[in-house]
């Protein structure tokens, strides 16, 4: 499959799938790091504080904004996936996908604003 083929075939739900998959993958890769940082509470509290202090810095904040966004979009994406699987109606998939993206974005923005 060439990139052009993929672009020609792409459509909103397919993009939603890719976003869901990549966000899931990113979460799975990030979580061990997140867990390790929290475990520092047990082993090296000072370092935990140091790391958490990073949240003040721009990059880290953006990264965190990203993570919250990832979690949000993955969750709402997942819920929108499951809705037609468990509810007996032919779902307006595209609208759901768009709504999931919008809600996630809002949530992440809220997070960012609070963090500022």
């Amino acid at each position: 499959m060439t990139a052009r083929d993929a672009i020609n075939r792409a459509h909103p739900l397919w993009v939603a799938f890719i976003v869901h998959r990549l966000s899931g993958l990113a979460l799975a890769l990030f979580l061990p790091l997140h867990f390790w940082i929290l475990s520092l509470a047990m082993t090296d509290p000072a370092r935990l504080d140091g790391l958490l202090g990073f949240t003040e810095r721009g990059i880290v904040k953006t990264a965190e904004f990203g993570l919250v966004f990832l979690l949000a979009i993955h969750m709402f994406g997942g819920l929108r996936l499951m809705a037609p699987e468990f509810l007996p109606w032919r779902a307006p998939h595209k609208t759901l996908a768009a709504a999931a993206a919008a809600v996630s974005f809002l949530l992440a923005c809220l997070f960012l604003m609070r963090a500022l």
Partner: protein
Amino acid sequence: MPVKTHQVTIVRSSDAATEFEVPAHDNQTVLDVVSWIQQYADPTLSYRFACRVGMCGSCAMTVNGVPRWTCRTHISKVLQDGAVEIGPLRNLPVVKDLTVDMDPFFDKWIAAEGVHHESRTRHDDIAPIDASDPARVEASAGIECINCAVCYAACDTVTANDSYLGPAALQRGWTLLNDAKDAGHDAILEAVSGTGGCHNCHSMGSCTALCPNELDPMSAIAGLKRETAKSFFKRRR
């Protein structure tokens, strides 16, 4: 002689020519373009068609990366700067040039229990059926599938997972599951719950987006997921 031509690239399995200039006409489908090449430019080009009107589902090919019925696709719809690239359908073994072996597709259709399970015989009367019954409406939604494999070629899960039954076969399973005359309820649920079953579908929706018949295999598959989930709890009591 028409002056205008199309630039046509054919993805070949043999090492024959791949670039052609095809005379343009007002009423011209992608199939006509392919036929012209075989009839007038390269007699060795292989492709398949039968009905020429979107009923047999044997002419599907990849046009500019997108699977389509070629007999019902007007060439103007796919030309990009006067050019088009035509290849064999994705996700199926190529026989030669633009023809693919559709057996895997049909093997999976049968593997999904896509065949009527009799509950009556020719000696019985025909069952009276209310066409507006919700289950019947659900069954009728996918009944006009012509097994062209466009959705099968569109689905990246099929590409990535050779055992995945694919949208058309699963949709057939769903249709039968909702068919009051069909006695295969358990067999179908069993068949669509295995390694290649409906649970592999990621609702990418390419099947529904590209089905030339405007059918909705994605929702049919969602229906199967729902029914199998129900049976999951039932079986566990």
